[in-house]
């Protein structure tokens, strides 16, 4: 069933259009930077973007930082929100469940396909960023400079970029879990996706408020930017570990809630 769901997801043109559109902005930004030679002032704009003019190997990270706040969560919410609600809206859910596979297996298959989508999307953004960075910007053979001012070799940049890709994927799983849970509550995929986005926007807003600092460590978006800490020397693991733990709690709680809801729900469409 997992294979069926994966095939369905990646054979759908919509999936690739979504991933393609997600890459459009970083590519446009790269072209603009390369043509005008005008990088944002250091400390302004997405992280690492000011450094790419002198070191193109950092562009995968800059590309991820560009899509991380909004575009990536939107894409993940839309795909995860559609998982169950999309089938219900199309009237295919009861046929799916008519197979002897059972609701739990269907939910697991949907979950795996959503995780696969998140991973593929993040990797494609980084890969396109890599190609664009190599083509449009200078690439320093000796590597680059960490945020702490130490020298970093190209191998270290590559390794830490792989870790950053993994971390951003994990960060997106919380979004996916929210959308998947809402997807079991409603028959409208749009409502499920917007519900997950509403949670994220509320979380981002509360994070900026000092008055909300007592529960800020538990907000789903709190540690999203912690992948930057991989490029400090020594690596600052504190927020990365907390970010992974926090996403794990959200995923476990929300997927359990989705399972409890979906396995006991009356399927009418």
């Amino acid at each position: 069933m997992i294979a069926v769901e994966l095939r369905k997801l990646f054979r759908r043109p919509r999936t690739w259009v979504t991933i393609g559109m997600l890459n459009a902005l970083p590519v446009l930004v790269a072209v603009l930077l390369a043509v005008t030679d005008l990088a944002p002032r250091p400390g302004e704009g997405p992280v690492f973007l000011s450094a790419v003019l002198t070191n193109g190997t950092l562009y995968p990270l800059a590309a991820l930082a560009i899509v991380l706040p909004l575009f990536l969560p939107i894409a993940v919410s839309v795909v995860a929100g559609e998982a169950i609600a999309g089938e219900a809206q199309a009237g295919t859910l009861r046929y799916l469940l008519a197979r002897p596979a059972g609701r739990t297996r269907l939910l697991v298959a949907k979950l795996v396909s959503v995780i696969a989508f998140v991973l593929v999307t993040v990797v494609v953004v980084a890969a396109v960023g890599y190609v664009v960075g190599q083509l449009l910007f200078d690439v320093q053979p000796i590597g680059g400079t960490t945020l702490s001012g130490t020298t970093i070799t190209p191998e270290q940049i590559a390794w830490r970029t792989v870790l950053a890709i993994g971390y951003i994927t994990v960060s997106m799983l919380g979004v996916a879990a929210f959308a998947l849970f809402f997807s079991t509550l409603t028959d409208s995929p749009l409502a499920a996706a917007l519900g997950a986005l509403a949670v994220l926007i509320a979380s981002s807003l509360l994070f900026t408020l000092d008055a909300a600092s007592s529960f800020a460590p538990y907000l789903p978006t709190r540690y999203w930017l912690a992948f930057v800490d991989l490029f400090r020397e020594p690596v600052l693991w504190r927020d990365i570990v907390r970010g992974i733990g926090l996403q794990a709690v959200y995923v476990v709680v929300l997927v359990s809630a989705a399972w409890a809801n979906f396995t006991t729900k009356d399927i009418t469409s």
Partner: protein
Amino acid sequence: MLLALPPLIGALPASDAGTSAADLRRAALDSTGVAFAGYAQAAGGLALPVGEQLTGVADLLSDRTTMRTWYRGVGDWRVDVVSPTGETGVHADASGTWTWDYVANAATRTADTALALPSAPDLLPSALGRRLLSEAGDAELSRFGADRVAGRDALGLRVVPAEESASVGRVDVWVDAASGLPLRVQVFGAAGGEPAVDTSFLELDLTTPPAEVVDFAVPAAAGIREGQAPQLLLAATRGTRDSTLVLPAALAGLDRRTIEGAPARVGVYGRGVTLLTVGALPGRASDGLRTALAGAPGAVVDDLGVRIAAGPLGLMLADGPDGAVLLTGTVTLDALAAAATELTGEAP
């Protein structure tokens, strides 16, 4: 259950010890040799009405600052201010500091001087705690309970300044029971309420960090700059050179003290956490400051000049016989007015 875990862990009782206040202060002051690595956060509640030139200082005293630190000993440490998109690292060696700024892609060399603007390393609980305890008298000290800070048992030590003119109500320092290292410092104004400065270690490891983490080499592509501290000292010396301001031996009940290397025409009065600095200010520098001070909420403008209180920090621009006089320090507005009266001979 998950939500209840952090408060439950926080409520774990800390074990107190019978250490006296004087002994605890001694232990804190002797902790300069304790090596550690840590992660700390400082929150300032002081809204300073300063212009463009001092935004760094104003941010330090009004914002939340997150720091990582590695300390091997005096003159051999590193403090990084960590922000979501950058980092500023101060690496100290025997003769001064290197400050690495990722955002500016520049390294700044600053020699040790007697006069320097406050920077993030000064806000580290260990440094701030030792500084605020350094001149506290035994009669000003008291013990209060214990708490867990950065997962360690910390003993409470309170300083209530004896001076009448003090604007600092109390300073609470939590000192590590095992090592004597100050782990948390809170500075309260005379009115109490929220702390004006609250700095605390969140993580602490008492093993000696490796030298290569603390050492600094300027990256190949980075710019090199000269630190501002010598210019600051020079400007303060030049700016006050022509002043005819006579600095008395005592002001507002606070005795004058000498600081080696500081400009002769800048007077520092008081002791401990009650300090007052007085100096003439050249016209071009005073005009902007006067406007900023007068526009600040709660500003008092009268014949003496303009004065404001930003938490326990008092700032006054007094009209002296031959130009403006800047008075600033941790004293009350009344003490500032009294000092200005004594300096200019004018009644408020």
